[in-house]
């Protein structure tokens, strides 16, 4: 089933390039998304064992990320129907094909149990998205695409070096001589220490670039600022989550090798730095899409901190992966609608979005409240669990900084968001004829309801899944 899901989205992506009709081509996205979600649901009902001699297996950690992005992709695919209809003038061949190949590659990252396979799939996510950032065909989006392509490729090349180092750490006599996660974890303490440590540094830099952790985030504001809203949703709520999963995989090996303290300190440092940097750059941000990019830097920082804290915070990290994916979907899709309705994403031009867009405007505000951790939305609970993990394990300083940055970000982001949604929209620039439609406002609305529902009631199955995923990482 897993292989089938990966293959179907890949083949659909390929056929999108051959599909002759520009108007009907976006339907392929719907087909791909529906097949993917159906496949993921069937994997929930009938879990599947390892396939391809253990290279491919959907474990609990992978299941969290894959299921989240499956839902997010379906929402984006429905949104795309409305969006691409409006952009009928533009050839969407590369856009549709690239998105489907991205879906296929992301799923592969989620189920890869071999660090080489994982690397190949991560690289494909970069290559599939870079041309899509250029969808608007102007100088600014071109600059963003180039930066994203070059910075990510360099980061990923360093991750490959790290992967090779990890392989070398187990290449001695009696070593596992393998890059399969299970073999590396089983060999654990026998791995050569200096190589494991060097490997971790390169892998963290490489996959950290892909996550967009500070100071490796330089591509992020540009790419998210210029990409169409739905691509931003899939990058911030999908790809970065998978990059986090890659870091989790590496961390599993580090813990087995007895290097968890070293890895945790590095993760805590990068995580807190990301949150601090997001707090600084979010204040006074004049461009609301770039603001969302810094929010993504912040949330990747939160995930890194949670993984670095270990213990009960790790379960919170997996919960937060879901919340981050869904709420980034709300924000980016709503922001895309606002951008369309005003023809600008500068807050000097945009005001009164609540009046002009009676659904997307309030959604943008609600999405902001959700993502900054306001109860009763679900990010509040995951951030609460992480904070609780910090205090209960005696990491008072980490917990205090965590809270401080969350508070500063709430204020900084709130100022920008309120500026966008409040006020009188008369006199603001606009594109006549753009209104909230079901296809463009419905998907973010449903995603927001999901964020709300998960905050009010967390199903037992999900709770168990987060615990099982955390068990893979912490062993308890």
């Amino acid at each position: 089933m897993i292989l089938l899901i990966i293959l179907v989205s890949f083949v659909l992506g390929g056929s999108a390039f051959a599909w002759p009709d520009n108007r009907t081509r976006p339907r392929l996205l719907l087909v791909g998304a529906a097949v993917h979600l159906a496949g993921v649901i069937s994997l929930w009902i009938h879990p599947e064992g390892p396939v391809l001699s253990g290279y491919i297996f959907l474990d609990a950690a992978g299941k969290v990320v894959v299921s989240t992005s499956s839902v997010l992709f379906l929402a984006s695919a429905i949104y795309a129907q409305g969006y691409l209809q409006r952009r009928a003038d533009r050839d969407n061949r590369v856009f549709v094909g690239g998105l489907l190949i991205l879906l296929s590659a992301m799923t592969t990252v989620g189920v890869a149990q071999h660090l080489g396979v994982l690397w190949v799939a991560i690289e494909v996510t970069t290559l599939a998205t870079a041309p899509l950032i250029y969808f608007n065909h102007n100088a600014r989006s071109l600059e963003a695409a180039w930066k994203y392509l070059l910075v990510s490729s360099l980061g990923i090349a360093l991750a490959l070096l790290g992967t090779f180092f990890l392989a070398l750490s187990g290449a001695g006599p009696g070593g596992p001589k393998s890059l399969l996660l299970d073999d590396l974890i089983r060999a654990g303490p026998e791995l050569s220490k200096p190589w494991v440590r060097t490997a971790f540094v390169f892998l963290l830099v490489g996959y950290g670039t892909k996550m967009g952790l500070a100071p490796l985030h330089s591509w992020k504001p540009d790419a998210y600022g210029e990409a169409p809203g739905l691509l931003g949703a899939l990058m911030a709520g999908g790809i970065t989550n998978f990059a986090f999963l890659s870091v989790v995989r590496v961390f599993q090996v580090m813990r087995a090798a007895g290097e968890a303290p070293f890895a945790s300190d590095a993760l805590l440092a990068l995580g807190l730095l990301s949150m601090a940097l997001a707090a600084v750059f979010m204040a006074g941000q004049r461009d609301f899409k770039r603001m969302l990019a810094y929010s993504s830097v912040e949330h990747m920082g939160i995930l890194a901190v949670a993984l670095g804290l270990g213990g009960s915070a790790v379960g919170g990290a997996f919960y937060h992966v879901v919340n981050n994916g869904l709420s980034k979907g709300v924000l980016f899709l709503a922001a895309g609608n606002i951008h369309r309705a005003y023809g600008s994403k500068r807050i000097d031009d945009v005001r009164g979005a609540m009046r002009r867009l009676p659904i997307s405007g309030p959604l943008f505000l609600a999405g902001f409240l959700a993502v900054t951790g306001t109860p009763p939305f679900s990010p509040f609970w995951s951030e609460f669990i992480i904070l609780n993990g910090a205090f209960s394990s005696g990491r008072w300083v980490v917990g205090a900084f965590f809270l401080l940055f969350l508070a500063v970000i709430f204020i900084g982001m709130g100022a920008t968001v309120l500026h966008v949604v409040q006020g009188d929209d008369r006199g603001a620039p606009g594109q006549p004829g753009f209104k909230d439609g079901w296809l463009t406002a419905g998907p973010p609305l449903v995603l927001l309801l999901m964020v709300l529902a998960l905050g009010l009631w967390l199903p037992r199955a999900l709770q168990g899944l987060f615990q099982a995923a955390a068990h893979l990482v912490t062993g308890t």
Partner: protein
Amino acid sequence: MRSLADMAFILVVVLDLFVLASSRLGAAIRAVALQGALLSLLALLLASSGHNMGHVLIVAGGAFAIKAVLIPWLMFRAIREMAIRREMEPLVGYVPSMILGGVGVVLAFAFSRGLPLPMPEMHTFLVPTALATVWTGLLLVVSRRKAVTQVLGFLVLENGVFVFGLLLTDFMPVMVEAGVLLDLLAAVFVMGIVMFQINREFSSLDTDAMSSLKD
């Protein structure tokens, strides 16, 4: 065999320095292509009797086809279409780049002592060569202005990483190694497309023209 491998490693490092110092784009691309060819030769030279020969041949052949033939061909095509001949237009001059490259080589040799290979039968030059080449690649990407040269730097970096891959033919399945090589090819292809658009949009491949996005 041993001395031949020695020669090949030294040549790879010499080519690093040559690319750093060369002002002609064509010569630099040829040097990177030659480096790719040397790597595929090294894959053969380093294979001991314990290796699966079929696997080694596939990796060596694939590396030669992609690193020494296909990618250089794509790069030459790109500079022909965009009518760029020479001038690497460095942000850091050629002599300073050479010196930085040389420092990198020395550091690579010093650093590799701290990382003894777990396989003692393997070559002592391997780790320093790989590290020096990775360093050269990074240096090229950050110190050159033209998009083409940045791609060239990325290729040198990938060559450095590949040197480590030479040790791992035993436990990377062929499919994964093929995936790594194909990803590289696809990356250069996508970079080529984006470069082509940059050239059209800005009438040059100068990445300094691309500085409108900032906070």
